[in-house]
């Protein structure tokens, strides 16, 4: 075998690195070709389940003079072989080192993957800091939901794309050609493209206590605020007619059709619900065509209808019936990524169940009605219990409910309410089904305040309180019908630090990766004490980033505009304190501002 083949063979799962999957694109490597590496800072199984990668990969490769390849974080076994043998991290398509690329585009889905970004640069022999990279080295781009606070990576990434990347990425690559592939000229021109943030052209000054004093561009003609980009019409938008079909089992191994973008529910904790506004649906005809094309091009046995809240699609019933009818004979099933707690969801489930029956997952988010009102999660106890009764009588025995711990204003009474719900559902199951096979999984995650949400000013709960809450539930759910899944609050704490962090965190990241830290999102590698030692050594207090903030304070991400106004976020924050609900804006505009700002009249 060749040197790279040898280490692929020696790795635990060679199919992570081999490439060559069906629908992979290969192109001749002529000097005219612009080379782009789509970089996902986690392992193959996770990255290949990410829809954005499939969209951009095919969009870019559909352009004649652009060749987009993929690269993922190598698992620690392959990383060790690479380092020991002095080999570079490589793209899957042509096994090229990343230094050979014109662009490396990282997707930012999770704050705890930041160290993986730096580690991928390290394994490629590319300097961490933008300022240390020469004109011949690739342009490092980044985009994705975490890009709405780009500051913790502002000294590392050359250029951020804010919002939906389909159109702007093509504009940027066009611009790159126009300026004769000169990196310096390119960045200067790119900084003027709407939706593009080139942090090197902005300066931050700080107050003595560490808060931001001022943030401004240092080059003339560059905007002080960067507004997100969106695709206005999803029916006209590019959607890949094919997707790479992995050989190995990945997290989401199915054909994915996106049915709309945005969400109208207005849950106050949810960053996606705010930053992806407004809602833009595809027509059922477009969805049916895309599903048909993808099934033919992939051979998948399942179609997932994806969005932030699939059951909220305006014609969901007829859509599912039609898709089922069309695909049933080929044993192709339909799956829904999330379900609402209402009778309508049960109707839809009955339809979908004809082909396959899986476990069901519902997001309840909080145990008490009061706390659900605080976060504007419009679910009542009645919704919850009647839905459970119906699904049990339809034959389901496996249910998973999601909750969050550490939400603003939460007390132990709210946590105890989770136990009450679990017990009540157990009793309902016996009555409604007469069976004895219930597995009720209660899963709690830790609430992390995120930028551009009504809770962006709120404090992260204390680690002591979170532990107490988890311990209570561990104890309260110690019955064989229950399964309790919980999360290490310390990793959520670190996520919280980076979610609302500023530029000073760049050097923390660099030091962490230099000291061998990566895969923070993986329990077996997360080393909290090591992180805290690094913060201490750098004289940075992580509590500074998890604290409660004033409305007046300049936030590190204030120069990024999602279209939802700060006034609306403040209003929602105030309403949450009074446990007051805000309606779903499909039922009437709630004036979040997204249709009044830089995007124009979009809804």
């Amino acid at each position: 075998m060749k040197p790279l083949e040898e280490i692929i063979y020696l790795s635990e799962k060679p199919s992570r690195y081999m490439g060559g999957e069906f629908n992979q694109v290969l192109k001749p490597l002529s000097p005219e070709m612009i080379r782009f590496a789509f970089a996902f800072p986690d392992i193959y199984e996770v990255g290949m389940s990410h829809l954005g990668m499939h969209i951009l990969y095919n969009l870019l490769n559909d352009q004649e003079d652009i060749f987009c390849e993929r690269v993922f974080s190598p698992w620690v076994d392959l990383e060790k072989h690479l380092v020991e043998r002095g080999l570079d991290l490589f793209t899957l398509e042509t096994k090229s080192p990343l230094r050979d690329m014109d662009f490396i585009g990282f997707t930012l889905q999770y704050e705890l993957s930041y160290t993986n970004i730096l580690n991928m640069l390290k394994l490629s022999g590319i300097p961490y800091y933008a300022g240390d990279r020469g004109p011949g080295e690739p342009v490092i781009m980044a985009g994705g939901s975490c890009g709405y606070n780009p500051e913790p990576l502002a000294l590392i990434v050359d250029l951020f794309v804010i919002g939906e990347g389909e159109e702007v990425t093509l504009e940027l690559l066009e611009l790159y050609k126009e300026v004769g592939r000169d990196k310096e000229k390119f960045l200067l021109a790119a900084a003027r493209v709407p939706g593009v943030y080139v942090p090197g052209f902005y300066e931050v000054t700080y107050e003595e206590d560490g808060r931001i004093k001022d943030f401004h561009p240092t080059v003339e003609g560059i905007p002080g605020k960067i507004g997100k980009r969106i695709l206005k019409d999803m029916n006209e938008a590019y959607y890949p007619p094919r997707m790479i079909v992995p050989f190995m089992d990945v997290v989401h191994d199915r054909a994915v059709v996106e049915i709309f973008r945005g969400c109208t529910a207005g849950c106050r904790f949810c960053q996606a619900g705010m930053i992806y506004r407004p809602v833009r649906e595809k027509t059922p005809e477009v969805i049916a065509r895309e599903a048909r094309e993808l099934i033919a091009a992939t051979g998948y046995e399942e179609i997932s209808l994806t969005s932030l809240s699939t059951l909220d699609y305006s014609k969901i019933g007829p859509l599912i019936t039609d898709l089922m009818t069309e695909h049933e004979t080929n044993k192709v099933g339909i799956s829904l990524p999330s379900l609402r707690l209402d009778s309508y969801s049960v109707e839809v489930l009955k339809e979908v169940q004809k082909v396959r029956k899986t476990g069901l997952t519902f997001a309840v988010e909080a145990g008490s009605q009061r706390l659900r009102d605080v976060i504007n999660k419009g679910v009542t106890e009645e919704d919850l219990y009647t839905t459970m009764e119906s699904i049990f009588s339809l034959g389901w025995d496996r249910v998973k409910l999601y909750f969050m711990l550490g939400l603003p204003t939460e007390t132990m009474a709210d946590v105890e309410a989770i136990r009450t719900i679990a017990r009540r559902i157990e009793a309902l199951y016996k009555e409604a089904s007469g069976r004895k096979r219930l597995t009720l999984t209660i899963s709690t995650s830790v609430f992390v305040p995120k930028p551009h949400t009504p809770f962006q000013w709120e404090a992260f709960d204390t680690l002591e309180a979170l532990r107490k809450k988890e311990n209570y539930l561990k104890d309260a759910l110690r019955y064989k019908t229950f399964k309790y899944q919980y999360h290490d609050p310390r990793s959520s704490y670190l996520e919280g630090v980076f979610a609302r962090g500023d530029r000073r965190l760049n050097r923390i990241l660099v030091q962490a990766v230099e000291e061998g830290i990566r895969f923070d999102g993986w329990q077996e590698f997360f080393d909290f004490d090591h992180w805290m030692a690094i913060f201490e050594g750098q004289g940075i207090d992580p509590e500074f980033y998890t604290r409660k903030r004033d409305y007046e304070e300049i936030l590190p991400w204030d120069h990024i505009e999602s279209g939802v106004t700060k006034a609306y976020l403040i209003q929602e924050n105030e309403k949450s304190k009074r446990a007051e609900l805000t309606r779903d804006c499909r039922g009437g505009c709630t004036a979040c501002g997204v249709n009044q700002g830089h995007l124009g009249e979009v809804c």
Partner: protein
Amino acid sequence: MAYLQLLARKTGNLRFLSHLETHKMLERSLRRARVPLAFSHGFNPHPNISFAAPLPVGSLSDYEVVHVELAEAIDTGGLIRDQRRFFPEEFILLKGKILEKPPSLMKEVVRSDYTVTLNLPVSPREIEEGIREFLSRETHLIRKRTKKGRYNEVDIRPQVKDLAYDQQADSIFMSLDTGSVSNLKPLVLMEELFDFPPEKLDIKREKLYKTKDGELVELY
């Protein structure tokens, strides 16, 4: 009932596929080609696909034989002709035919031919010496782990039907017992013969055989 029998090559990177992954790859390729698969009943319907003598991860193959149960017979010529639209580039269909109710492939296979290309800085003499020494033995016992975790002693010498070094090609040709009665993997033999790191070797299956009227014939 109709069965599709295929003969295929597994080349390049596809050597890294596990048996399960190869299985899934074939299923999805056939779905793309709209081959009418027969499905099992129940909540998780799955097609009936079986490979003769699945290879371990890392091996190349010029001789993969597969049976696929079909809902109805198809024109295999069309499938072979249009294969590039449906199969990953490095999986190459050579032949296909429709059978009525074929016997189990796993039960039929009795022998395999392999070539093992060495890519190693060792002298041909050393290799020829090792082979000659092995062939001169009456028996060669190895310890083999059973499924229950215990160890059995197995004599692999009679399982080796042919063993020769081709200096020009820098490869060892071997013909070994394969199947449910007697089975020897090429890497196991290589480890007994030499002390070469397995990642250096290129192992390729050349042929599979069954017996017909007492004679050894190709499986496909």
